[in-house]
């Protein structure tokens, strides 16, 4: 177990270094990031340019720049937003809660609907319920989330007027605030729900077909006990292992959903940073998203060892 933990931690650190180099590389994808400060059609005096370069450390060799940047990063300093002249960490910190709340609610929604639906679909295989559940999952996978969001706004907000169009309704009473969550959560959670459903279904079918289930049935264990104790316990591992894949989906999805529903979160900060050419802010945001993803996948991997002890010794 300790061996596994050490290896896993080392890999996380390595991935982090590779990812940080990639993000840094992006910052230098153009020959000189300093050009981003100059609005098109304007010129900058050579002295100003040199001063700016010195201020941002762009006159030093690339390796030194990376090391400085990485060192600052380790101390939690992601630099200042060019547009707002405030630390990137402060800006992201302000918006983080909204994104996390949306993602967590959507994740809960996906889990508590997707997994039971997958179980039901496997138990009633070949029935109308099964086909309905699978059809529902199929649409969740194949319709673009941002389009579903727009259609949802058009039907439920504009046409029927049941739900608010945008924002998170901060400061409103609980029920009113909950209304603001309905559409974004459904849109963000549908895809992951479909993923959970498909995987739970096939895992459950596989387990139900196994020898030990037949044995349990043969020795007269009640059907309820067969399903909930013998089958589900073993089938649940597979849906858990896709949690990391789903996380990546949440992060990319969050950007689109926040834009559509004007949700005041990190994804929108990123898009606005792009629109205003705010380079420090966008690299910082990407780096935070990446680091978070790596951290969550580490946590998920450690969780599997709890659920499935076989992994520990692999």
């Amino acid at each position, binding site marked *: 177990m300790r061996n596994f933990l050490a290896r896993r931690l080392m*890999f996380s650190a390595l*991935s982090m270094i*590779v*990812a940080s180099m*990639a993000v840094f590389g*992006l*910052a230098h*994808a153009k020959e000189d*990031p300093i050009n*981003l400060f100059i609005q098109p059609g304007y010129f900058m005096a050579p002295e100003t340019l040199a001063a700016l370069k010195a201020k941002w450390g762009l006159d030093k060799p690339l390796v030194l720049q990376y090391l400085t940047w990485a060192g600052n990063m380790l101390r939690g300093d992601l630099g200042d937003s060019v547009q707002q002249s405030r630390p990137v960490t402060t800006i992201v910190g302000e918006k983080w809660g909204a994104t996390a709340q949306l993602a967590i609610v959507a994740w809960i929604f996906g889990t508590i609907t997707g997994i039971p639906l997958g179980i039901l679909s*496997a*138990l*009633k*295989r*070949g*029935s*109308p319920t099964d*086909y309905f559940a699978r059809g529902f999952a*199929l*649409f969740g*996978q*194949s*319709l*673009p*989330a*941002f*389009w579903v969001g*727009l*259609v949802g*706004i*058009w039907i439920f907000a*504009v046409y029927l007027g049941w739900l608010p169009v945008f924002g998170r309704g901060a400061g409103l009473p609980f029920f009113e605030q909950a209304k603001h969550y309905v559409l974004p959560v459904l849109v963000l959670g549908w895809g992951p729900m479909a993923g959970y459903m*498909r995987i739970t*279904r*096939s895992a459950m*079918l*596989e387990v*139900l077909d196994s020898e030990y289930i037949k044995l349990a049935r043969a020795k007269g264990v009640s059907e309820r006990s067969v*399903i909930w104790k013998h089958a589900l316990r073993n089938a649940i591992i597979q849906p858990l292992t896709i949690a990391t894949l789903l996380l*990546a989906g949440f*992060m*990319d999805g969050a*950007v*689109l959903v926040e*834009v*559509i529903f004007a949700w005041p979160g990190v994804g929108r900060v*990123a*898009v606005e*940073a*792009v629109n205003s*050419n705010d*380079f420090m802010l*966008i*690299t910082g945001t*990407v780096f935070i*998203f*990446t680091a978070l*993803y*790596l951290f969550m*996948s580490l946590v998920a991997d450690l969780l599997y060892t709890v659920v499935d002890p076989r992994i520990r010794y692999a």
Partner: protein
Amino acid sequence: MDDSQNLESVDVLTGAPPSRKFRVHLRYLRFLRTYPIFSVVILSTLVFAAVTASWIAPFPERYGQLRDRHAEPAIFGGEGGHLLGADSVGRDIYSRLLFGARVSLIIAVGTILIAGSFGTTLGLISGWYGGWIDEAIMRLVDAMNAIPVILVALVLAVAVGQSFWLLLGILSVGLWPGFARQVRAETLSLKERDYVDMAKVGGASTGRILYRHILPGLFSTVVVVSTNLVGTVILAEAGLSFLGVGVPPPTPSWGGMIADGRLYLTDAWWVSAFPGIAIGLTVTSLVFLGDWLRDHLDPRLRQLE
């Protein structure tokens, strides 16, 4: 999935077979599952539209008549001769959909070719050599998976300006790990086969073994992974174009068209609705085709979904 053989299976809880009426439906469903007719029809329509867009589109795709602004779809009784209506600058939605199919197809095929050849090569090397090479490549795959593709696309769109090639590059970077992982797993099992040992004994060079003995065995895996990922590419391209960092306008792309109609939902729902339906139909048929191919080419991959 694997239901084509067991559609009339019994209900696990009650032991009852499905109702009679439903059984009749099942017969059609089984037919549809035995042959991927839905997918083939939709996808060949898509390819046909993409290839012949220049000849069959009734209107120019990049220019519109302002007097046709938000013309209603002719199929819902609108006037002005626009089959699926017109957008806020009077461009014909139907024509733009046809040309959008071309863009989606080129991006999808291009990405799959680039990501597929790169990912397959690395997966092959990783699985064949093992050891630290394998470890290094797999860590790279993990690190790549951790990078949020949409955000990176946003960064690059600012850093180097949006372009068709950039889009192709980003999507390829996002997709090659999927190929590498699958191909590696398949290579690991193929290299233990007897015929590979025979080839070694026969004095075949490593390059020859990889090219003549392992690569052909990877065919079905690569085809199945490609089909599944084409849908992902189309959705990702649409998402990026929606955010304004995909295919640069005025070239029509489905995602961009949805974005165009976003501000006019109440006045002209058709601007956003039709491209969304086109994406949905395309990706749905790709999912069906992928499932079908998986069942027929490579049953082992079934466990993945």
